[in-house]
């Protein structure tokens, strides 16, 4: 039986472009009033997933349902989408876009639109092509939030915005979710996702490699950090431990990212007689890097060392 609290249900969604699997068997559910963050490296398939969810790309297989029903045009009356790249018309002004949105959506709230224009402080009389990337994002967000949507799909909504306006976007999301709106969004800024999302899915190479409640994920993943007198040693059995996602060595410091409470790994490292050792909660960045695999982590390590 369908869970009536599920607003967006994505089941085994696959989208291929030629031989490339942009999205490969992706499944997730977004509950009413929640903020669901989709994380992934560039090319992980986040944007294609959003497009397939909204019917802008046709998946080869899989199913998307909104409140248990297939996507229908009428749903867009209460759904807003802010794409990653600017899809607005360069030759039209911000005011023209507001007028277009007003004429297209019965729910358009002119007073809210005015307030959002003031909040983001862009000149709505300018043509879109005369606006900076951040101002274009601000206009797209203004249009999206001005219809007071029940469902928001935001692909990199803070792209190009300054930190002040990024904070405004977060506040708008919190405000919308508190009012019962369901939000599906992606961001390259892990800190933003960590702050905003209550659920997260991590995509890598078209697949979801990790998903769950943000707090539960953080609680279930630990870092065992040990400091030695000399260079951190190679400890037999550490890398092969099924609970260890990744091991980093930076000079005398060794860090093991583990999927459980970390006690077993701490005991194993303790046998190598470190000077000090502690078990820490992982942040979302650690979880993300561990989830997207060794090559990303190795590249990051290399970049840190350089």
């Amino acid at each position, binding site marked *: 039986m369908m869970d009536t609290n599920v607003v967006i249900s994505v089941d085994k969604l696959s989208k291929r472009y030629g031989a490339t699997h942009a999205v490969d068997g992706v499944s997730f559910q977004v509950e009413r009033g929640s903020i669901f963050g989709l994380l992934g490296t560039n090319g992980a398939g986040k944007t294609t997933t959003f*497009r397939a969810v909204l019917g802008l790309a046709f998946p080869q297989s899989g199913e998307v349902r909104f409140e248990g029903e297939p996507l229908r*045009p009428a749903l867009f009356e209460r759904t807003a989408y802010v794409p990653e790249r600017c899809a*607005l018309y360069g030759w039209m002004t911000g005011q023209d876009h507001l*007028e277009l949105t007003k004429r297209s959506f019965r729910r358009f709230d002119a007073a809210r639109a005015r307030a959002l224009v003031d909040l983001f402080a862009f000149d709505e009389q300018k043509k879109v092509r005369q606006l900076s990337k951040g101002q274009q994002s601000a206009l797209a967000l203004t249009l999206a939030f001005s219809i007071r949507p029940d469902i928001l799909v935001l692909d990199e909504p803070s792209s190009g915005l300054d930190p002040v306006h990024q904070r405004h976007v977060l506040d708008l999301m919190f405000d919308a979710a508190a009012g019962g709106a369901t939000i599906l969004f992606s961001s390259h800024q892990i800190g933003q996702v960590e702050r905003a999302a209550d659920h997260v899915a991590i995509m890598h190479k078209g697949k979801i490699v990790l998903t769950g409640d943000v707090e539960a994920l953080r609680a279930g993943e630990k870092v065992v950090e040990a400091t030695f007198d000399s260079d951190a040693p190679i400890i037999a059995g550490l890398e092969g431990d099924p609970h260890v996602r990744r091991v980093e060595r930076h000079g005398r410091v060794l860090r093991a990212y583990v999927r459980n409470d970390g006690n077993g790994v701490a005991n194993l490292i303790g046998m190598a007689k470190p000077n000090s050792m502690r078990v820490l909660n992982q942040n979302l960045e650690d979880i993300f890097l561990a989830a997207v695999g060794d090559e990303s982590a190795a590249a990051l390590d290399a970049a840190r060392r350089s």
Partner: protein
Amino acid sequence: MYYKEFLRARNSVFIYTLVWAGLFLLTAILSVWLPMGEEAHKAAHVGGNLIPQPWPNLLGFAAIAASIVATVLGSTLSQEADGHLEFALTKPASRVAYASVMIAVDFAAIIVAVFVGFAFVWLHYAIFHHTTTGCCQGYRLVAGPDPVFNTLRFLLFPLAWYAIIAGLSAGWRGKAGIVQGLIWPLAIAIAALRELPSTGGWQAWHDLFVALNVFNPLMYVSYNDRVSETTVQFAAGHALPAIVSAAMLALFMFAGWASAALQWRRAEA
């Protein structure tokens, strides 16, 4: 939903009107400074009387001019598909409804453009094609033969022209310019090549271009009235009955519309 296309169409018609106004001003100046108007006036006389001018002829001229606007607007769906689908297709309307509204708005603009052109041509006749005693005297505008279907086909021609461009380019993301750039020279060339001799080694070519011209909208604005000996034509001597031409142009219009809407259903961001 239609507002963006309304703005685009309004801008196109506005520029088109400015061009007509400029041409009108130019002809007015030339008529004052050069004896062109007088010569034209004399040439239009037979035995001291003005030859009556069927207004469908003026409409035909205006329709062909308006097909320039149709050519410009015909790229609308191709342009929408080039980076704007995320905005265009997340509105509470079906894809077919969206495409149809875009096309309908452009159709309205094209009809306005026809009447703008007609008004300027009519003004030109009214002011400059008059007897020497004063403006507008002796000018005779008449209905001419088969005015209903001639009017209909001249109104349908730019719409069919638009629909063909939209139908050929809707699924061709951002590449409508190729269709817009090639359709005029191709249509004129195919119309001209119909005149190849139908004898000897040319027979097969002649037959080929006769067949191709069935799908050439220019063939259906060929016009030759016996009132003023005025012709609006791209294929001399091959003017079809107005009702047949109107029917073919209506067919092109609906086929182009349907083709564009079907392609739009499959457009992906």
